C-alpha cells in the first residue's frame, strides 16, 4: 500500500479503536451499576457484550499495526479521537440503558459504513475493509437484540 493509503486506513482504524473503547467502557459501566428486577438478565447480557468488545479492540488495534501505523495507547487519546460521547452520568434505568446502547451502536455502525465506503473509494486496503464488514455484521445483530428488548422491529 502507498503511504497515503496507509495513513487513511490508520486514521480510520484508530477512530474505530477509540469508539470501541468508549462502547466497552459504557457497557462495563452498565454491567456493574445496573439496578432493578432485570439485574441478573441484563448483567449477563452485558457481560457477553463487553467481552466481545474487548476482543474486537485488540483485533482493530493489531490491524492498525498490520497496515503500518501505531495504535492509540491511552485513555486520554481514546476520548479525544472517539466520535461517540461517553456517558459520564449516574447509571440510568434498565430500559434507558438499552436505549442508550442502541444509539451508540447505531452511531458506531454508521462510522463503520462510512469507513467501508472510504476504504473502497480511496485505497486498496481490502483486508481492513473485510474486517469492518465483519464488525458491521456482528454489531447489526447486537443492535437487533437491543431493538427487540425495547419491543421495536
Amino acid at each position, binding site marked *: 500500500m502507498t503511504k497515503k493509503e496507509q495513513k487513511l486506513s490508520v486514521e480510520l482504524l484508530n477512530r474505530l479503536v477509540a469508539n470501541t473503547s*468508549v462502547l466497552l467502557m459504557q457497557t462495563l*459501566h*452498565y454491567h456493574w*451499576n445496573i439496578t432493578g428486577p432485570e439485574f441478573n438478565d441484563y448483567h449477563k447480557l452485558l457481560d457477553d457484550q463487553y467481552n466481545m468488545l474487548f476482543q474486537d479492540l485488540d483485533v482493530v488495534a493489531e490491524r492498525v499495526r498490520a497496515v503500518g501505523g*501505531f*495504535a492509540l*495507547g491511552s485513555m486520554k487519546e481514546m*476520548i479525544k479521537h472517539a466520535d461517540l460521547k461517553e456517558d*459520564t452520568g449516574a*447509571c440510568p434505568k434498565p430500559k434507558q440503558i438499552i436505549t442508550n446502547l442502541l444509539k451508540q451502536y447505531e452511531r458506531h455502525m454508521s462510522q463503520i459504513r462510512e469507513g467501508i465506503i472510504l476504504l473502497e473509494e480511496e485505497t486498496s486496503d481490502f483486508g481492513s475493509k473485510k474486517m469492518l464488514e465483519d464488525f458491521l455484521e456482528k454489531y447489526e445483530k447486537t443492535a437487533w437484540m437491543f431493538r427487540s428488548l425495547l419491543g421495536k422491529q
Partner: protein
Amino acid sequence: MIKKTICIIVLALHMIPLSARHHDKKSLRLSKVEQRVSTDILNQLLANEFVLMMQTLHYHWNLLGDEFHDYHLLFDKQYNQLFTDIDLIAERIRAVGGKALGSLYDMTQYASLKEDRKKTPEPKKMVHNLVKQYEYHTSDIRNGIKKLDDQTQDYGSKKMLEDLLEQHEKTAWMLRLLTGKQ
C-alpha cells in the same frame, strides 16, 4: 387462646429494648461511613488498574524489536489478568454499596498513576515503565489495606486487596527480572 398467645408475643416483643433491636438491624451491613471509605479506596484502585491495563495494551500493540514476540505474549497475559481484576474490583464496589466509576474520563481523573502517551518506547523502557507503575500501584494497595483495617470492618475488601497485592507483586517481580534486577 389464640388471642392470648398473640398478646404474649406482642408483649414479649415490647420487652426487647428498642435500641437493641435498632442496633441489630443496623449492624447487618457496613455503616454508611465504612461504605464510603471502602468505595473511595476501591474506585481509586479501579482507576489505577485501568491505566495499567491501557498501558499494557499500548505496549502489547506498539512494541518494536527483537523482543516483539516474547513481550507481545507476556503483555497479552498481563492485560487479560488486569481486565479480570477490573471486573472483580468494580463488582466489589457494588457489593459494599457503592457505585463503580463508569467512564474513561472518570478513570483518568481518579487514577493516581499517570498514563504513558509516548508513541512507542524502547522494549527495555516499556518493562522499566511497567515495573514503576506496578510499584506505585502496589504501594497504593498497601495503603488501602491499612486504611480499611484502621477505619472499617470491611474484611472482605481487605482480603480481596491482599489477593490483588500478592498477584501484582508477582507480576512486578517477573518484570523486574527482565530488566536484570533482583
